[in-house]
């Protein structure tokens, strides 16, 4: 069960503002986290606490394929991202590195910045404790659940290669 305070953004939050390219000469997640969201929200790092949740409307993570973006978000302490929709490559990258993403229009419409949410990933349930509301996120396809339950794509690939060898 995840629990945290919401940091809410609008549409088309792109990878250049999540982690600007000027920092892409580093790839250590903790170092990247120090610049997470700084171009659109300078106080983000001051406000964020471990377990907090990023929320956005549509097309979150659009732009480049840099995995530095979900890595920076995860290392900043964010437990999951909830949006109406995600950009395709960002979605893959987050699943592959084990940053949970949830899609729910209703949760985004009815939640404000600062609200406290409780998220049950296994059931796809989002509870807004501040407003006493409950929402359901779209379930992951079975295929992706395999990657998530293995703990990310690297672990999943290890298992696949091991089963090929037998």
């Amino acid at each position, binding site marked *: 069960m995840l629990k945290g305070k919401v940091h809410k953004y609008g549409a088309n939050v792109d990878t250049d503002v999540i982690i600007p390219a000027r920092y892409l000469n580093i790839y250590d997640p903790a170092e990247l986290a120090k610049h997470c969201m700084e171009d659109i929200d300078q106080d983000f790092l001051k406000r964020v606490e471990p377990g907090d949740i990023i929320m956005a409307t549509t097309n979150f993570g659009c732009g480049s394929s840099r995995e530095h973006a979900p890595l920076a978000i995860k290392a900043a302490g964010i437990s999951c991202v909830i949006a109406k929709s995600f950009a395709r490559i960002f979605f893959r990258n987050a699943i592959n590195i084990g940053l949970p993403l949830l899609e729910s229009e209703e949760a985004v419409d009815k939640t404000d910045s600062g609200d406290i949410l409780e998220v049950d990933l296994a059931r796809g349930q989002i509870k807004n404790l501040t407003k006493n509301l409950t929402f359901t996120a779209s379930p992951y396809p079975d295929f992706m659940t395999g990657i998530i339950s293995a703990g990310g794509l*690297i672990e999943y690939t290890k298992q696949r290669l091991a089963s090929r060898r037998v």
Partner: protein
Amino acid sequence: MNLAEKIIAAHTDKKEVSPGEFVNVRVDLILANDITAPIAIREFRRIGVSKVFDPKRVVMVLDHFVPNKDIATAEISKMMREFCAEQGALFFEVGKAGIEHALLPEEGLVLPGELVIGGDSHTCTYGALGAFSTGVGSTDLAAAMATGDIWMKVPPTIKFIYHGNLGKWIGGKDLILYTIGDIGVDGALYSAMEFSGEAIDALSMDGRFTMANMAIEAGAKAGLFRVDNKTQLYIKSRARRPYHVYEPDRDAEYAKVIEYDVSGMEPQVALPHLPSNTKTVSEVGGIEIDQAVIGSCTNGRLEDLRVAAQILKGRKVHPRVRCIVIPGTQQIYLDALSEGLIEIFIKAGAVVSTPTCGPCCGGHMGVLAEGERCISTTNRNFIGRMGSPKSEVYLSNPAVAAASAIAGSIISPAEIN
């Protein structure tokens, strides 16, 4: 099946695939660059296999921060150089390379009907060759380097038909900016785009690369063109292995068909801070600029440089403006040199840089200060893309960028005389 489905199916053990289906696809080529390779190499090591699945199908290119801009990027280059030497993978060194998406087609490393993944969102560029190519992240690269395949959801395809004739100074950049302006930056999210129509038939290969390049700016997974005589001509001297051309079926299914008449279209400009924020150049009306960039994987090819040179020839860049011209690859640089284009640029007061991504992603070689404005032939104008979060980027074709460099403000090439 449509074009995307045909190519994907050919890379699985299935006869047919349909949108929404999850499949494992074999990859013909895996690309990594100096941003995505370090994490890919680190994650590859974690998998615990010692060798990549096929060293001839793994290619690494130094382009974003080269020649090395600082110690950190020098370390990254070194790591890639050593990894490729150890694995026997293809490696493009400074001086023998260029921007990955201009370089790989030029080298014949991507061919029609192939399935390519790259750790760079603009990997979709190769759709111009009738290949299914798409951007992925570093962990995906690591897994694919180990296994030779990748999981993928078969995308629905949106078909775009462009009717009419292209006017003077109108190129692929205008068609794709217009399209993104119409459907929005998530207008093709999770989908493939298939481009067709008589305006596309008339478009050069360089113009098609420009269009496919920006499919990602509409959120698409790929942007595909059918193979025609122009494609075959481009491929003929380059291909070093056999390839297969796929055609969409007559009764192929599309999620949507969108048609445009492009006759009389004006050059398009995307205003800050989204590529979908498009207007015609005359609607933009005289916005003053500090810098003009002509280059990138979108518009750094020979045809782009020729167009820019046509306008810059015998003229001077406005005293207030820095004009930066970046040929996409060493070969393009050399061709531009022998055609006399480089001399035209330098005499006009532009700086000509060695092939690099440079300012396109705010890396180096033309980073913007607070309050500065740049007209650029690149593909993204997000906040802070070229430097300060308080700078602005306007996207256009090379003709508009060159004309604006002379005028000192954004104007139509038709107004330069």
